[in-house]
């Protein structure tokens, strides 16, 4: 079990409260992108492909907190861009901790040791560094298009763990990933001592013109079966076990595109973290004004056909956990036995 009890309790009570209130569309994780600027230029990453004046923009802490309050999700994920390049990252995290939000600060960790040395953060059960790691040294450096980044990330992980921070990893798998190498990578991360791992198939951002290296659904199911069907006892995942079963093709889920709403310098992104089909000025407008029936597998939308990404389906898995005794039982069994 890798997610702390207090965090599980917070999420469980939040979901049950939403259900008791009869809310059909509620967020689980706010994807808060304070900036698009990054110190890497990973091929195929649409987040960084903007003109200079857009890359120089960032949200104010006040804008971030207004979005957090509007949204109300119990978990705030801070991706980007590279959030450690955000000049106000320390004050932002401090405010979020004060609001008792569980924070996943998604970073490539290049700047992590430097920021820790500078005293930007304080360890807290609410703060987890979610380190971008797409595999062992060779695969990771290739994925981020720069040699040496894997070693920098490992150094950052070690330093954060030494200082008492929660550390997880997030891994995106692309076409051509080797199951054997991924399993070795999981072993390596566990040996490093991270709290848990997150894994998801890659997806082509709508404006990043690269479909061929992103996994199709059947291929993704086969890959995750080979990786996860015989998990090692020591592996810990910081995500819903039902989502892992979905990745293996054991469950068939529909997307919950409002589960992980995204806020950035353009506003509230419609309809989800991956597709950029427009922006709403308020969270209420995002929820009420988005034509949700146009998205998800059942919609027939080509862009959604092969998507299996956590930001759309993990919320579905969490909802299943709390919407039926069977879902709850399956989650408990998978969590206790460690078998996906």
């Amino acid at each position, binding site marked *: 079990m890798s997610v702390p009890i207090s965090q599980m309790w917070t999420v469980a009570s939040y979901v049950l409260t939403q259900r008791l209130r009869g809310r059909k569309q509620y967020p689980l994780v706010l994807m808060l992108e304070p900036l698009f600027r990054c110190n890497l230029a990973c*091929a*195929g990453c649409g987040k960084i492909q903007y*003109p200079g*004046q857009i890359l120089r923009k960032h949200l104010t802490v006040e804008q971030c907190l207004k979005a957090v309050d509007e949204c109300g999700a119990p978990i705030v994920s801070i991706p980007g861009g590279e959030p450690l390049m955000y000049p106000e990252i320390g004050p932002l995290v401090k405010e979020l901790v004060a609001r008792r939000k569980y924070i996943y600060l998604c970073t490539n960790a290049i700047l992590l040791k430097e920021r820790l040395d500078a005293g930007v953060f304080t360890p807290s059960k609410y703060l987890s560094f979610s380190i971008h790691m797409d595999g062992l040294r060779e695969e990771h450096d290739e994925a981020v*298009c720069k040699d040496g980044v894997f070693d920098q990330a490992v150094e950052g992980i070690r330093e954060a763990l030494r200082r008492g921070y929660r550390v997880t990893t997030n891994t995106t798998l692309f076409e051509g990933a080797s199951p054997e190498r991924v399993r070795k990578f999981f072993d390596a991360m566990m040996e490093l001592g991270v709290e848990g791992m997150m894994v998801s198939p890659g997806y082509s951002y709508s*404006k990043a*013109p690269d479909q*061929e290296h992103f996994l199709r659904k059947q291929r993704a199911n086969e890959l995750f079966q080979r990786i996860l069907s015989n998990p090692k006892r020591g592996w810990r995942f910081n995500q819903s076990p039902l989502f892992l079963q979905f990745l293996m093709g054991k469950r068939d889920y529909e997307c919950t595109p409002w589960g992980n709403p995204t806020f950035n310098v353009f506003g509230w992104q419609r309809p989800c973290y991956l597709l950029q089909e427009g*922006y709403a000025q308020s969270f209420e407008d995002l929820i009420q004004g988005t034509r949700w029936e146009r998205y998800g597998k059942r919609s027939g939308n080509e862009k959604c056909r092969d998507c299996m990404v956590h930001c759309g389906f993990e919320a579905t898995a969490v909802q299943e956990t709390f919407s039926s005794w069977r879902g709850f039982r399956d989650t408990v069994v998978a969590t206790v036995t460690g078998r996906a």
Partner: protein
Amino acid sequence: MEDEKTLEGWAPEPDADLPLARIVELAFDYRGNTTVVKRDGTELYGYVFNRDAEAAVPYLEMFDADGGGPYRIPFAEVRTIHFTGKDTAAGKSYAAWLARKQAEKAAHATGSPVP
């Protein structure tokens, strides 16, 4: 490795086959600055980040070249949009990077200069 097709440099004029709404949509998808040419003859150079063709008053939204804005401009005020800025996505696909890396490896192995 041939880069993906880009609209960089394109200066369309709307007509029956290419309505303004389509040009706005292409500008919204374009990862670079564009020049919005207004019906009053003025122009605004910057990044179109949003549009709503289904709104009661269809509009686009953009930041100017200095990051100022956002400016909301009704479609009715727009004559056309020219794709004048550099396409910041062109040549940055994973496939293009892989091809470059393989070319570098091949060149390194043969001792020939990297193309």
